[in-house]
């Protein structure tokens, strides 16, 4: 299968990107300055991320669509206000996660942002669950560009007026070069920021304007270190079809009422797990010293029994040390529990810790 390229591919090349294949797309892992500089620039200034490989699924419908989607997602969609977004997941009957996503109420339906590697499968599942009842468009004509970091609001507002007034997890349509673009105040780095859905024809021009105003292109490498420091899950690492939202410690993303009333896919398992408990849960792990524990590193207790496994681990440039997330047996999930990580045949001490590793600085809106 031929590798797919986003509308910004040429621009990535101009900025000397190193490319990797990611979910069938040729994507920049880093640019000239490298992951650490890119990471810090995002935390201190403003980073631009090409996330056009992600799925932008538009589902059109009225009240019956809201009702049907509530049978799928553990959300109170009836009370989700226009242009407001929620983090959620698509699950199977056993509450295993097919994908994690952001769903936004738009005037004529919903916009759902899906992971690149999952989007085709998600489309099939959703289409089936909704019995082909609604018009669904996995829009390949639009690019998705994220701008993240403390200077982002000011930079974006110079190009698209009034975006600075959006509050966190809300969005709106704006005009750019006589075209409609959808801007949400969101992101996945732990910083204040925006995601902009713009027509492919304008994506490069728009990105160049962001660069001219002082933002810099940032690769997937720094995106990973940023989200890990922020304690955010990545599908294929923390999340997969065998993990439930309870095990992934994402209960906060579900509506309390919906959990107790049920009636969505996976609700029985979720209620059962909340009642009877779970075996393992997602935690933050801070290795002592400088050693880095990568995905699949085995976690031991002090009596040499395996109690879990690392799902993501790297060097956190803002933490200035190693950071990791993983799953451990429930009784070892308390903060400050001492564990051991087996790396290249040797065991290294680490501590279970709270998340995030790096404090989020989202801008809270007045009308939340």
């Amino acid at each position: 299968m031929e590798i797919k390229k986003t509308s910004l591919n040429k621009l990535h090349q101009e900025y000397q990107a190193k490319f990797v294949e990611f979910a069938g797309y040729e994507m920049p892992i880093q640019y000239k300055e490298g992951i650490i500089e890119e990471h810090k620039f995002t935390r201190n200034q403003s980073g631009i991320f090409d996330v056009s490989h992600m799925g932008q699924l538009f589902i059109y419908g009225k009240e019956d669509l809201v009702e049907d989607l509530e049978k799928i997602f553990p959300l109170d969609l009836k009370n989700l206000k226009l242009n407001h977004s929620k983090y959620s997941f698509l699950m199977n009957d056993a509450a295993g996660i097919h994908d994690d996503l952001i769903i936004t109420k738009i005037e004529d339906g919903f916009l759902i942002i899906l992971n690149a590697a999952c989007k085709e499968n998600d489309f099939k599942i959703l289409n089936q669950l909704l019995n082909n009842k609604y018009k669904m468009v996995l829009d390949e004509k639009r690019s998705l560009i994220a701008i993240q970091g403390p200077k982002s609001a000011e930079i974006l507002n110079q190009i698209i007026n009034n975006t600075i007034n959006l509050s966190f997890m809300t969005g709106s349509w704006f005009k750019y070069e006589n075209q409609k673009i959808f801007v949400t105040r969101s992101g996945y780095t732990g910083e204040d920021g925006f995601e902009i859905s713009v027509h492919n024809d304008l994506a490069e021009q728009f990105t160049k304007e962001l660069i001219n105003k002082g933002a810099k292109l940032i690769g997937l490498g720094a995106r990973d270190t940023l989200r890990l420091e922020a304690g955010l899950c990545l599908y294929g690492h923390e999340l997969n079809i065998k993990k439930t939202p309870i095990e992934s410690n994402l209960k906060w993303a579900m509506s309390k009422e919906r959990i107790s009333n049920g009636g969505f896919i996976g609700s029985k398992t979720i209620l059962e797990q909340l009642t009877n408990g779970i075996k393992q849960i997602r935690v933050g792990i801070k290795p002592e010293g400088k050693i880095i524990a990568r995905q699949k590193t085995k976690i031991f207790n002090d009596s040499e029994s395996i109690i879990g496994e690392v799902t993501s681990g790297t060097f956190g440039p803002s933490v200035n040390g190693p950071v990791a997330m993983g799953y451990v047996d429930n009784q070892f999930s308390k903060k400050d529990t001492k564990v051991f990580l087996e790396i290249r045949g040797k065991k290294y001490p680490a501590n279970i810790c709270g998340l995030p590793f790096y404090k989020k600085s989202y801008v809270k809106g007045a009308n939340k």
Partner: protein
Amino acid sequence: MSDVKFSKEHEWLKVEGDVATIGITKHATEMLGDIVFVELPDIGTSIEKDGTAGVVESTKAASDVYTPISGEVVENNQSIVDDPAKINSDPENEAWFFKLKIKDKSEIDSLMNKEEYDKFAKESVS
């Protein structure tokens, strides 16, 4: 610098008497990206040509470091353990990895000179 030799695993080696200083090349650091962790062989260990002699980790992944020749480790560079970023800034000089007491000088003959290595490195970029 005619006395510097290079391996296909992107290590450099500099011989002074019967001791060889070994590190990784600038080209290797460019491929790895920002180095954030390094593990060196202990002083006194004997290592065989092409055997594992440490680990470097970038933000992205871990990679083994190999020794281009056999010998006994007589020194290792703790300053790069404390500050792995040095490996990116000065890989072929200050950020050497370890020194070996050379076991068999003839092993050096099979290594590349600078010109040969530069050509090899250029061709090995995917």
